[in-house]
């Protein structure tokens, strides 16, 4: 742990007297970020080096390209289906503008990034969902890109590594978003029927239609520490059953205890764990090495 985080902070009140400050001191969001778990201001440099993880273990949302760089070998990623982008075909109020703004601010066209990459030398198809693009919600294009990726991987006999983060189906695309659950599930099934491996990594939060489809279909399901994974949100459940859910409701740790996840892997170890799982899988491919 960096030395600075080991010091406690005195609560001395500001000495009085003299001139008032020329202007109020601004909160310097550029320099530090407050951890919602431990409440400390963490320097951005520390966060960056720790893979957007607070020294206390809290995982901050990770931008897509950063996660790709974090997980894969340098310069091994080739993007696929990058030209696809959502349209506002229902005329949903404000949707078109929202999409335009998000494309500007994130530099991404959609809430999922697909491609082919190598992780410690092991080739795989990869999708990473974007927590900064409508909270990774699944609309027609997200569904289409993921389905296409599984089809592409099935054809090329590649394993799929998928990093899920999502608020669920995209409400601005209505019933067509829900359709994506069936479509992606079918693509995952066909990929699996071909004897191919699918590894899902659930990050905070993975909810709704994404949980109810491809996110939970992994042959192996890993989760990040403290990730919320569920279908309906805690508040909706509370209002429906009229009981307060426990504090660890829908947490990755509970999923692990009840067999819905296979392991919880902190970010620092993810690359190594994913690579070793890919290595094990490579040896077991039925069409190779006489198995």
């Amino acid at each position, binding site marked *: 742990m960096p030395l*600075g985080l080991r010091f406690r902070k005195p609560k001395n009140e500001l*000495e009085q*007297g*003299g001139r008032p*400050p*020329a202007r*109020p*001191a601004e909160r310097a969001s550029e320099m*530090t970020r407050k951890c919602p778990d431990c409440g400390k*201001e963490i320097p951005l440099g520390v966060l960056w080096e720790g893979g957007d993880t607070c020294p206390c273990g809290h995982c901050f949302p990770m931008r897509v390209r950063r996660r790709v760089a974090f997980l894969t070998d340098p310069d091994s990623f080739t993007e696929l289906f990058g030209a696809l982008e959502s349209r506002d075909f229902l005329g949903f109020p404000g949707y078109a503008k929202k999409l335009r703004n998000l494309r500007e601010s994130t530099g991404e066209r959609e809430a999922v990034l697909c491609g082919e990459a190598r992780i410690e030398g092991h080739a795989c198809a990869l999708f990473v969902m974007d927590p900064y693009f409508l909270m990774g919600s699944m609309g027609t294009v997200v569904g289409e890109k993921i389905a296409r990726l599984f089809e592409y991987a099935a054809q090329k006999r590649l394993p799929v590594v998928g990093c899920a983060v999502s608020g669920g189906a995209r409400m601005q695309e209505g019933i067509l978003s829900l359709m994506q659950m069936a479509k992606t599930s079918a693509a995952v099934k066909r990929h699996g029927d071909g004897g191919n491996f699918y590894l899902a990594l659930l990050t905070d939060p993975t909810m709704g239609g994404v949980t109810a489809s491809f996110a939970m279909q992994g042959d192996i399901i890993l989760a990040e520490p403290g990730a919320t994974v569920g279908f309906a949100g805690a508040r909706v459940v509370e209002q429906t059953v009229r009981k307060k859910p426990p504090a660890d409701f829908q947490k990755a740790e509970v999923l692990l205890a009840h067999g819905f996840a296979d392991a919880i892997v902190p970010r620092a170890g993810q690359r190594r764990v994913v690579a070793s799982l890919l290595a094990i899988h490579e040896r077991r491919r039925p069409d190779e090495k006489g198995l």
Partner: protein
Amino acid sequence: MFSKLLIANRGEVAVRIIRACKEMGIATVAVYSAADRDCLHVALADQCVCIGEAEAAGSYLDAGRIVSAALVTGAGAVHPGYGFLSESADFAALCRKHGLAFVGPSEEAITLMGDKSEARRFMQRSGVPVAPGTDILRDADEAAGAAEAIGYPVLVKARAGGGGRGIRLVRTPEELEGAFFTASQEARAAFGDGAVYLEKFVSPARHVEVQILADEAGHVVCLGERECSIQKNHQKLIEESPSPAVSAALRAKLTETAAQAAKAAGYVGAGTVEFLLDAKQNFYFMEMNVRLQVEHAVTEFVTGIDLVKWQIRVAAGVPLDFTQADVRLTGSSIECRINAAAAGTVSMLHVPGGPWVRFDSALFTGCRVPPYYDALLGKLVVRAGTREEAGRKLQAALCELVIDGVPSNIDEQLAVLTDPRFCRGEYDTDFFREDE
């Protein structure tokens, strides 16, 4: 009062200022170079900003970057510490231009005292004794004539000089021309200003300086003197307060003179008037340092006044809540500077403790001492009822100080403390020269 303050420095002085701020409830912003990422001042501050590469010219001496860091973080004031930009009038002006309070005197005062020749003239006008000397000299011929009039030995001094650079001692007329050119050239290279003047070389002499503190309302108090004659290569090694060479009558005279000079200059903040004291108790103005001194801790020990906190308060417009009559100098305090002889990593650190033992330092076990900046590792300061007791205490504390991994001057300092001349209090700035 400022709610947030940026410290434009590193090392022990940055830590000293951050600690004062923590007591005062002021949020702190540290700036650091690429070599100082893991330093204590960065770890202690509430926020930190990297301002460039390891070389000071691209980081701690870059006024623009420091002011930008203050503006980005919303700091209301900048404390320059000592060294680096602490005596830069341009830096003070840049801070004020951007609405930042500069913890130090006005640009005008810094400019006046930064020009050694101008400061000399100003002090002379204000009734402060100065050593016989000249104004700026045109050439070596003019210098030769003036030197005859003053009487050898003389010092050739650069107007912009400091830290021992741009100074040459001339004992005979033959040496003068060479000394004139080397001093001038050295000053031109180091400070971009080659103007020099002559001053009578007072020897043997003691280096005695008076600490002053002044507020915006024009109140000036003197916080006693410090004796800084133990010097090697113009670098102070041991400082003490009170000076064993200053009697109560002389102290009263020094106090009055320094206060008078500060008042005449309209000085605000903490400052130090340096004097040379000859064997006959005559004193001559040498220069005025417009910043916190490294050795301020000995004054804090004998007066009980926190100089850094008062610097910040004065910069925020708080008037001094005590007068000269309230200042009582009690006991005796000695400081010795612990310097690194080379860069390294501290593998083990043991700091002495006990009553009235203070170690101002930015060291911790595992910290790296980079080769880029000054050699000061820390200052071991003690206070006791008498000078004799303070000497014993400092020796005991110094023996307990362990810094593994970085070679230091602890043994050399112990040798000074046990030297009979030091024990008797009878020493001058030639302390090391006689040794050689």
